[in-house]
């Protein structure tokens, strides 16, 4: 990972010095284990803070929305897909961007790792595909593969799809992974069971909106939950309002979600927010052969019409 870091710094300094961009958006080391912080560099000095490791799971495309000027951005596979989505949704222009592509081997699941140990984790170090987790009175080394975030474990687009320069060699894409295997359980439930499942999933939601705000797709100037004329959704902890928020947000992401996992990473309560978007991603793949953010030249299925649409009513 130090190779990536060095290369990212080198590229960032170069494009800043050459005046190709006004800022480079990347990550800097956080103040906690398994936590890096989105950061912008405007000078060679601040570019020195840039870092890359397996704790860069937030989606940096979220920091591009409606930005002016020329911007450099560090992008792993999913970030690049959300940059593509931003471009086709007119939130940024491709020629405003200098994309530093990072071939990715997956990000760590801090919730999973925390739940493996009874006491606080004080240090997490990585070396190749080995992760060493240290706390008071324990130190264990595990393979990175078993600690990956769920979306990373089934990711089939680790390499950036759109970039100006790469910070490392392209990596082999994962084959024979079933991205939607975990859906089988929910799909086989009865309506009542599904209701209870989602109700339980949301029982700890505090409506902080971290999931929405960490999501690069959620850029509406006024979110439907914040509208007051008319007020579509109540603002209390009433379970109906909490569910309405999550379900409608998921539908707003249909055909746009790249399964980057930022929502889950951001949730302070550890709610598996991807359970809401995953089925819609699967439907888009099955009905329209569509995965979001793979091409600048194709319109998303929900804003276009094709004569071979699988639904009869629309023809």
């Amino acid at each position: 990972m130090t190779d990536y870091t060095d290369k990212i710094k080198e590229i960032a300094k170069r494009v800043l010095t050459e005046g190709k961009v006004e800022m480079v958006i990347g990550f800097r080391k956080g103040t906690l284990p398994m936590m890096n912080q989105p950061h912008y560099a405007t000078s060679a000095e601040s570019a020195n803070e840039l870092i890359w490791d397996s704790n860069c799971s937030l989606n940096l495309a979220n920091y591009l929305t409606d930005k002016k000027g020329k911007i450099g951005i560090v992008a792993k596979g999913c970030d690049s897909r959300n940059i593509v989505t931003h471009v086709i949704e007119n939130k940024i222009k491709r020629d405003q961007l200098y994309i530093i592509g990072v071939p990715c081997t997956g990000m760590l699941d801090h919730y999973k790792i925390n739940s493996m140990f009874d006491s606080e984790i004080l240090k997490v170090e990585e070396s190749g595909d080995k992760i060493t987790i240290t706390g008071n009175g324990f130190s264990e080394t595990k393979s990175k593969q078993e600690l990956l975030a769920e979306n990373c474990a089934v990711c089939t687009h680790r390499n950036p799809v759109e970039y100006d320069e790469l910070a490392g060699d392209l990596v082999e894409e994962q084959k024979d992974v079933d991205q939607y295997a975990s859906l089988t359980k929910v799909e086989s439930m009865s309506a009542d069971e599904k209701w209870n499942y989602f109700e339980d999933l949301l029982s700890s939601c505090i409506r902080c909106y971290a999931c929405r705000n960490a999501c690069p797709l959620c850029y509406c100037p006024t979110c439907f939950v914040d509208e007051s004329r008319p007020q579509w959704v109540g603002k209390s902890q009433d379970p109906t309002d909490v569910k309405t928020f999550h379900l409608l947000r998921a539908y707003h992401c249909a055909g746009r979600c790249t399964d980057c996992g930022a929502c889950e990473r951001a949730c302070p309560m550890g709610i598996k927010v991807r359970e809401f978007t995953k089925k819609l991603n699967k439907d888009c793949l099955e009905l329209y052969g569509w995965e979001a953010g793979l091409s600048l030249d194709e319109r998303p299925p929900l804003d276009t019409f094709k004569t071979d649409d699988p639904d009869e009513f629309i023809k």
Partner: protein
Amino acid sequence: MKLIKIDRQSLNDGIEKAKSAYRVFGPVKEKNDHEFKLLEKSEMPDLDFQNTRLSPKSIIYPQSQVMFTYSLDESKDDWRIMKEVENVKSPMAIFGVRPCDALAFPIVRRNFDTPDYQDTYWVKAYEATTFVGLACIDACGTCFCTSAGTGPFGEEGLDVLIIADGDDFYAKPITAKGESFIQTAGWTVEAESSVASKIDQLKTAAESSITSSVSTDKLKNKTILELYDAPFWEKEAFSCINCGTCTYVCPTCWCFDVQDETHGKSGIRMRNWDSCMFPLFTHHASGHNPRNVKYERLRQRFMHKLKYYVDKYDNGIQCVGCGRCIRLCPVNIDIRSICNKMNSFDAKNNVCEATSS
């Protein structure tokens, strides 16, 4: 003051007995983390925790709380009259409050219970509650209570402090409310006099296990505007996504929003926690928003906790050092770094000495 010795069995028996006189809340493991819950009959708190994910503030100050009901039915005499909901609180006890979270209640009280105004909902719940603290032996790396006005054995805001020593517990009554909780629990065995020095040792060890801190000594002497206009806010706010995590998990954040919800011809007026991180928090009906961009909102939160509160109450900072906002912020905004930046900001030369925590 006398110390009571309690063995594990008597601790459980005492909690069970207390349930006859109080609604007893305690930490319980839920999914992956501990949270405060109302303990059912024979349910015991799980004391194997560093701190709960959310603070116990919602027991006194629920996230959503109905204050009034009303009718829009013109055929009724009381139509369009706001009727206060019944606000009688039976005695409650929160068992296992950490000293940092306990200090948050007197801090919040400065806002909700003043000589001029009393927030009846908060005050009644607060007054009905006995705070039974549990001293911290095993602090988190993000704890900085010792530089935020309390400590792992801090007593402010508590009625009883319980100290665990292996399978033995010692209860130190702090207030009359605490004495009566101990009496109700049936804890009567006085500890030997040698225990006091043992507890002092535990306290010293716990305090020295706290490795992080904030500097706050210079905050008061700075002018509001020099901090308000400091150059670091925009940079510090870059990663902020303006979610409500920091404010909702904070034991000392007290802001709320009032909402009316009408269903058919009847309705309720309630309050819900609000967050200064949300653009809607300051959005005027005219459409104008005085805190229109995110760094202004982030600045507000830290200026409120670390400057406005400091100046207004002359009683330290509006932060107890629990570290929740640090642990749970999705983008690693760290109040320790920001506090140290504010404290060390030299307006004349436009620099901060502190760059990190």
